[in-house]
């Protein structure tokens, strides 16, 4: 249990460091929130009073502590431009982005593991073709993949209407169906990477002594593949998938733009273009927490799954 505690401490420390860095980075930006809130015509006394009230004159670490305390409690500040609480603005959007990421993750697993294993079992020419297709799929960046899929499903097959996003409250089925195509656009290149990673992992295991032993004891090829090799080969793949999940959170930023999905990513881009710093800060820290959290889970999973890592000892 000690290693888990140690990992947890490192994890919490990383979160703290990241939020401190993000906080300081946004402090460096020139500009005075009090001044921009009151407008340039405000008297210096009023600006000074508001600065006092907003706590802008406190030591920087105190400001950080206050901000972090509120952030963890779900109060992410107020957008000066919208005059609206940031957490209010982000609540619904986070749900959309997470659904999109989740759907793409399901796609990746459904595509990559069967195809990867199928290719290995058939071998030869079939696996070569899979390899070539894989290489090409990996080279298609998600935003172009999204455009190609829009063309395929929208123009050729006529089953998808781009820009036809409906919110979850309006139409649950429509919400999920619309997200299927964007999810596929995120999933395809990642699935290709997973296939390659899985096959490399299986091929590496195939040369191990235990495989030869298992075969010489009269097990069939299939038995050895499913009962012996895959158990070992899947361990690095699971870690890879968890890392891919973190990467997909970032990948959804672009895809949301391609398919005009009103999620966190679009909000992020709008906030960058319009300099809505409180919103920006909240989104960056939120995404950072998500990514670090997923990496933490991947780490734990890896230790748990592979007894050779000696999870107890670390």
């Amino acid at each position, binding site marked *: 249990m000690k290693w888990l505690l140690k990992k947890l401490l490192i994890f919490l420390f*990383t979160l703290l460091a990241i939020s401190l860095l993000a906080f300081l980075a946004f402090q460096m930006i020139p500009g005075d929130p009090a001044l921009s809130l009151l407008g340039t015509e405000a008297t210096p006394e009023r600006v000074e009073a508001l600065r006092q009230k907003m706590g802008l004159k406190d030591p920087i670490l105190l400001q950080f502590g206050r901000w972090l305390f509120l952030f963890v409690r779900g109060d992410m500040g107020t957008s000066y431009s919208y005059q609206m609480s940031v957490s209010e603005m982000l609540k619904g959007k986070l749900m959309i982005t997470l659904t999109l990421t989740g759907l793409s993750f399901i796609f990746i697993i459904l595509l990559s593991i069967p195809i990867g294993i199928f290719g290995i079992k058939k071998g030869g020419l079939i696996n070569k073709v899979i390899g070539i297709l894989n290489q090409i799929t990996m080279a298609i*960046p998600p935003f172009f993949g999204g455009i190609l899929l829009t063309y395929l499903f929208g123009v050729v097959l006529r089953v998808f209407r781009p820009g036809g996003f409906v919110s979850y409250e309006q139409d649950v089925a429509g919400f999920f169906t619309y997200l299927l195509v964007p999810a596929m656009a995120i999933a395809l290149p990642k699935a290709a990477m997973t296939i390659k990673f899985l096959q490399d992992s299986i091929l590496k295991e195939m040369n191990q002594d235990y495989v030869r032993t298992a075969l010489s004891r009269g097990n069939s090829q299939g038995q050895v593949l499913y009962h012996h090799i895959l158990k070992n080969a899947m361990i690095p793949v699971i870690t890879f998938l968890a890392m891919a999940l973190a990467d997909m959170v970032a990948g959804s930023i672009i895809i949301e733009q391609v398919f005009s999905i009103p999620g966190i990513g679009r909000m*992020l881009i709008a906030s*960058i273009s319009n300099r809505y710093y409180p919103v920006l800060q909240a989104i960056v820290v939120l995404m950072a927490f998500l990514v670090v959290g997923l990496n933490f889970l991947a780490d734990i999973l890896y230790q748990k799954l592979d007894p050779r890592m000696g999870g107890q000892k670390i």
Partner: protein
Amino acid sequence: MRKEKKRSFLLGASILIVLFCFVLSSFFYMPYDPNQMDNANKFAGVSFAHWMGCDNFGRDIYSRILQGTRTTFLVAFFTIIIGGGIGTAVGAITGYFGGWIDEILMRLNDAVAAFPNFLLALVVISLIGPGTFNVIMALGIVFIPGFARIARGEFLRCRNMDYVKSAKLMGAGPFRIIIFHIFPNTIPVLLSAVTIGFNNAVIAEAGMSFLGIGVQPPDASLGRMLSEAQAYLFSTPSYAFFPGMVVVLLVLGFSLLGNGLERKA
């Protein structure tokens, strides 16, 4: 396995050389001014005069792709110069000397490396603002940790080798050893890191320009063209197809090249 690597290298190199020749030729002969608007030719199809057609302003798509590819090469090149240069220097020093600086920098590195590159670049862009130069800065900074980690590993591996020991016995100073003795031995590994870096830089630049925070209009860039073309996908699919294919070829070329250069296994 060796033969496959060679084939991958050759294929990647030829794709890139062909693309590079097109870009080079554009310095001597550009069919049209890439920003020249022409109302009569709005959405002109593929023809001998405009052999990839024209966009929504009647601008020649082929000329714009040439200019955009130039920008992409430029951004990728300087990104690697900044990220690869600083990263390798940091990795070399920490890897060779070790000690507590190494420990701190690598902990910091781990924290940053856990982050998707693209998200990190967006954070930097949000701080310094959009634009071509800022994209180079943002991506350059973001690429430093990756290179530092690879360079550190290599220098750590080499620092106790016999040739380093004998160079020390002959009185060579640490910086002489780092630059003239160890560095040449790390080049094969660094080179494959550079191709992967190019690959990531091309995707990131196109992505940021697609989002409208990279190369600013009216300058052509592949990502921007794609985002503009998206609105006309149903009427003029070729507008999206050509710039997209160039991005795919660039990425494919660099990744094949990288596969061929990779030394392990």
